[in-house]
């Protein structure tokens, strides 16, 4: 007579939304930048993007399902996000097998072997990009002809040692719009900011990490960016060039590879800025975003350990284990 009742632990109410929905939002947020890439570099950029995504899907399926024998979770869309982000970090002229290989490495060896979504300690796209960069440095830094047919050096390369050789920096407007040499998805600041704005509105990301990251890079490059005088660095070019904007809004905000607490996130972001600026100013590399991201990713457990939030009502002296 009495109905069979389900007994579960409270709460009995759940919010709308899903992890898959968050991933979909990220994909949607990348569309303006992908559009800008096809506009500036031509429809052919869709090929490396597609191969990177296919590689990411294949890598996740191969490692997760075929090797580790776990369930197929391709539907959570995270592999597609990884593939797209990797693709956007590749030069437009990248050989397609490399794009595929990079995608596969990202999901198979940076994500799935560590337990899959949420368990990876390093941003998969950044990890794979650094692998490709170290394995094929020349292919990863040959930017091909730019719009007006001039063989391109990236603005950061010009800033580093090109100005002396007589190469001119693009003006800030062009840096903002994105018609300059660079990885195919990183060049249009305008398009990236449109996507980032969407993510903020959808409450997928918060601005603390990107803003602290950008502010730190700006501050350091302004202070030390000029070899002859303090506070004379060309920080606007630094902020608008390279992969900084892409990384600040789409890589540094990656949930799995940033600290959990708010204080930890700020420390993480400042660290990203510091490492990025130091590499750009003081090493042989013109760009340091990928290295900064994976280095700080490795420091996240340490940051987490020292930034456990104080529970409400805990004694004033910080509670630390």
């Amino acid at each position, binding site marked *: 007579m*009495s109905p069979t*009742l389900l007994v579960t632990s409270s709460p009995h109410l759940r*919010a709308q939304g*899903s992890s898959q929905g968050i991933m979909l939002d990220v994909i949607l947020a990348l569309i303006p930048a992908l559009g800008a890439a096809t506009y500036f570099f031509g429809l052919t950029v869709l090929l490396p993007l597609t191969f990177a995504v296919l590689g990411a899907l294949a890598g996740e399926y191969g490692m997760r399902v075929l090797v580790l024998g776990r369930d197929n979770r391709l539907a959570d869309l995270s592999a597609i996000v990884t593939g797209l982000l990797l693709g956007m970090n590749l030069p437009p002229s990248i050989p397609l097998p490399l794009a595929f290989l990079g995608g596969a490495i990202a999901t198979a060896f940076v994500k799935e072997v560590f337990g899959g979504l949420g368990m990876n300690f390093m941003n998969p796209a950044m990890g794979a990009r650094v692998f490709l960069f170290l394995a094929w440095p020349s292919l990863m830094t040959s930017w091909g002809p730019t719009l007006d047919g001039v063989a391109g050096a990236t603005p950061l390369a010009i800033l580093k040692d090109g100005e002396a050789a007589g190469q001119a920096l693009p003006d800030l407007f062009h840096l903002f719009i994105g018609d300059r040499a660079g990885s195919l998805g990183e060049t249009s600041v305008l398009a990236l900011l449109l996507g980032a704005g969407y993510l903020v509105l959808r409450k997928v990301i918060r601005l603390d990490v990107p803003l602290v990251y950008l502010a730190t890079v700006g501050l350091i490059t302004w202070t030390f960016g000029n070899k002859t005088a303090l506070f004379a660095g060309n920080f606007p070019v630094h902020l608008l060039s390279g992969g900084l904007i892409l990384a600040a809004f789409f890589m540094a905000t990656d949930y799995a590879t940033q600290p*959990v607490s708010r204080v930890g996130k700020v420390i993480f972001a400042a660290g990203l800025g510091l490492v990025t600026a130091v590499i750009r100013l003081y090493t042989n590399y013109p760009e340091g975003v990928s290295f900064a991201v994976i280095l700080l990713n490795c420091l996240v457990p340490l940051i987490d350990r020292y930034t456990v939030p104080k529970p409400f*009502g805990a004694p004033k002296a910080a509670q630390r*284990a």
Partner: protein
Amino acid sequence: MFRRNLFRGGAHLPHLKTTADHPTVVMPPPNKVIIPLLQHMGVICEPTVQEGDFVQVGQIIGDSHKAMAAPVHSSVSGTVTNVDFQLWAGGIQVLTVEIETDGLQTPLKTLVPPTITNKAEFLAAVRVSGLVGLGGAGFPAHVKLSPPPGAKIDTLIINAAECEPYITSDYREILENSSNLLGGIQLLMRQLGLSRCIIGIEDNKPAAIAELKKVCGRAKGVSVMPLPTRYPQGAEKMLIWATTRRSVPTGKFPSDVNVIVMNVTSVSFLAEFAKTGMPLVKKKVTVAGPCVAHPQNVEVRIGTPLKDVFAFAGGFSSQPRKVIMGGPMMGVAQHSLETAVVKHTNALLAFGSEDGELPEASACIRCGRCSDACPMSLLPLELHRAALRNNLEDLSKYGTMACMECGCCSFVCPSKIHLVQAIRLGKTQLRIAAARTLARAEGAAK
């Protein structure tokens, strides 16, 4: 100005207060009541009646000499048919008294309004009334009103937040019984020697706020404070913070920050008891949820079986899959409709499959929404991970015991992970470990 009164974290919930505009309907006594002898946080009462006894309304049927207990009274007149253990919500066996109603509702003749001339008499009267915290926790009121000698209580906080979805029983109590509420507040302030009382209420209840301001707001020392509508505004620590800017230390009580918090319905009951001497034998209950034919507030006798309450509310419009006593965030899912309304029942909700069955959990993406939502500033994702691995070191490091199980983390989790359930498991693991350590120490002492 709203931010000032806002605690950290929390969640915006759907209100679903479908019964707000329905005046309370009095349900006649059922044929049989089932009254558990544990209707409070603390020690179970000993039965004072046995099978075959004739009892009257307001007669004590269970009591305890322990401090952390409140006496249990018969809510009907009739014959005791059974005194035995029954499976109760939460999977525990509870001693219950079943009484077959004679339909006359004869009150116990010896019931007279209590004589209250000093604080000791007042506290004794509160104990006799059987009052427990009616907001949901069931903390014995006489214990709450007797803070440790060192405490210098300066403020009485009335909890009218009613922040859980669906529930409107406190709201209806304010609209229908505001003069009793004022009487209760004045009684408490007089007997406890307090000059300040703050009524905290969420700002999504304008009619109740207007009524409170009209009736209670003019009384000396009493103020009505509308608070932002955000769950869990009615949680004791959050309410104390919102109204007085004081934070209760972990593991301590409101009296440690010089306040006493009472639920509105508890307070208005006290005034009623002072007038009539009739102990706590009935309760206003919100009967709602998608499966209830006529959602409404019902005044029921304590011990009324759930099936009778739902039948009184028009029965089920569709087959229920889950029945919850309390709100959807912190309420307890019932295994059977044969359990009964207790003193601190404020709602009975019936959900169908769509709302009752929880979605399957997927992988944690470490988005941090759970820790952003935690009003206690905990890291639910870390507690979850530690509990699933029985990692006692991490469980204590991340402050598991500070969790009040409000449910915000599970609510906001996009991966639908059962965070609160895991945290409960973690608490149990810590308690077991503590008990083992104690036993080992005792063993060594011998």
